[in-house]
């Protein structure tokens, strides 16, 4: 009740203010590679029911779990720092060349990036490279919802207001098989694995514990890729000016649902 009175009076609360302690100064890199343990699943297909058949075709690949048959690399796994104690700024060292404006494109009635990462401060550009209209519906918790009609070759923009704690769905209501995921974060410490299952995150605060969340579309409560990665979370320290290599992480099939 005292706390309620304090909150209503606008007076100071009881909890101590949380100040992130900057203990380190350097920056380092985290990398690794996710491989599928066992026989990789074959790429499935989703029927389009012949809708806009001339552009979409009769079926499109089901991208829910994409495993490269040659290397067993698992694509579209997302890693992001749950909380970064420090964030790299350009004055902290040689910054990587400014990345081009992130574009979220769709072609052949498929989102070209099945899983997409963006910083909250950046403006998302949603493009339609098809000769027919799409609509791109994004409605993440804590953020405005949007669902613009995108005529052929149109580009629309969307601004996140708040970072997401898990990737949010992107859908097209005209072509309901179209599905992708976007994660928006306050810092640049996120990565999506490529077709070979590898990822790299640069300029992480060195010498400090950083907790990462690992997410996959078929492990939405966290990809438990390794024993001990409860809820898909693990802590790691990267060396200053060095690379912490998680090497090859063999993900058991049971980690995906």
């Amino acid at each position, binding site marked *: 009740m005292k*706390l*309620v009175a*304090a*909150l*209503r*009076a*606008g*007076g*100071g*609360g*009881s*909890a101590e*203010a*949380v100040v992130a302690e900057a203990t380190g100064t350097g920056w380092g890199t985290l990398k690794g590679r996710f491989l599928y343990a066992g026989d990789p699943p074959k790429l499935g297909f989703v029927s389009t*029911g*012949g*809708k*806009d*058949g001339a552009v979409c075709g009769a079926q499109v690949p089901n991208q829910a779990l994409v495993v490269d048959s040659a290397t067993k690399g698992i694509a579209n796994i997302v890693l992001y720092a*749950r*909380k970064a104690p420090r964030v790299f700024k350009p004055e902290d060292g040689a910054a990587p060349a400014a990345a081009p404006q992130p574009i979220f494109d769709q072609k052949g009635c498929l989102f070209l990036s099945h899983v997409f990462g963006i910083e909250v401060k950046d403006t998302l550009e949603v493009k339609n490279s098809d*000769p*027919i*209209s799409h*609509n791109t*519906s994004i*409605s993440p*918790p*804590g953020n*405005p*919802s*949007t*669902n*613009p*009609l*995108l*005529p*052929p*070759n*149109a*580009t*629309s*923009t*969307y601004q996140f*207001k*708040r*970072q997401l*704690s*898990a990737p949010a*769905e992107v*859908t097209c*209501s*005209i072509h*309901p098989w179209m599905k992708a995921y976007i994660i928006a974060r306050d810092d640049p410490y996120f990565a999506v694995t490529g077709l070979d299952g590898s990822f790299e995150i640069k300029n992480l605060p060195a010498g400090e514990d950083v907790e990462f969340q690992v997410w996959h579309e078929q492990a939405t*409560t966290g990809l438990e890729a390794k024993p001990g990665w*409860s*809820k898909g979370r693990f802590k790691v320290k990267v060396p200053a000016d060095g690379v912490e290599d998680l090497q090859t992480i063999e993900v058991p099939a049971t980690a995906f*649902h």
Partner: protein
Amino acid sequence: MNKLSPAGLRTACVAAAVLCALVLLPGCSKTEPPQFRLNLQGRNPDDFIFASGDNEETRASKEQNKASLDTISTVMYAFFGEPNDPYVLAETGLDARKIQMAAGPTGGDPSKHQRGLYRQHCAHCHGISGDGAGPTSAFLNPYPRDYRQGQFKFKSTERPAKPTTDDLIRVLKDGIAGTAMPSFLLLPDDEVEALVEYVKYLSIRGQVEQSLTITLLDDGNPLDMNPSAIIAEHVAPIVETWNTAESAIIDPPDRPPIDTPELHAESIAKGAELFRGQKAQCMKCHGPTGLGDGGDEQLFDDWNKVKKFADLAKQIAAAEDITDRAERRTQLKQLYDRLEIEKRSWLLPPQQLQPRNLRLGVYRFGRRPADLFRRIYAGVNGTPMPQGGANASNPSGLTSEEIWHLVDYVASLPYDKVSEPGVGRGHLAGIGQWHE
């Protein structure tokens, strides 16, 4: 002498015990005052319930989750009070007098001031907490609106914007055609305004709760218990969206002239072409003839965030086809276990959305040309109906001229010959050419 038999003694004792219990039972005649329900929609209940098999880590995580719920409850109580005793935080800009009129139990207070309007008129569908899950909600389609997400469908403003006060008053006075939402036109204006204020209160309350929940439960961050910091981060941005609604009103530009039958017919024809064309894509959901039969897909709105359910249904169907018996059983078990969790995580089962049948002449938020213009321009917020019109963030959308043609076409559909009652579907054969 009248001796008490053992059986009689026993009866007397039981009767005395029951009597004692009735007298001593505290608060027997009173019911508990209603409380706002915590918003745990979409969350796994097992994250908060201790189980015998929990290891140390799981226990700690559950402890933390429960502590987070305590913090959320405390802040929500401090900032918003409870249903019988609402607190109006100054920073919300809400009118405390109106909130008092709408809140609390039905009836007047001792000085005969109106009280409890929300519980009298709204709570049975929209719920005490404004979660759209009141006792009658399960029987309705569509479900009553859940205000807590701060999303509203029927408004005159740009898609992401809040409705204006006038929009909400209009919904209350007109009701929503084609739904269970009735008209409250017979209520005095001050009562309607009090209810609108209370809807805003519940909506702001719900969004603040959602914001706190994201920080504490999803991000796993502690809350800085400094009130001004909480207000700045979790209350002010939400109040701001309500305060800026008026400036987001869509003002339909002048329409191309249709003052002669020829011009009108021409506009309708252009609208029909757009309706079936690949720019507007209307017929992909509303069907080639506007009957709302364009897609066979499952569509859901944001309040039925059950794409997970829809996906699960598809995954279960796919798993049924697995030929290896053991594998099929394992997969199905996993999927049904997940379905069970999903069911426990939501207040109401999923409700599928139907694209509107445009030939009925039933319009949920008005039949005036300006109303239809706004529906096509901004779409219907929170639903698959997209924002069709061009604006700053989507410059290649439909032009206002195109939207006006579509308005003319859509408005003509209920008066089209094939829409007349008693006319068989056979008359639609002529338009079969539009089917792919």
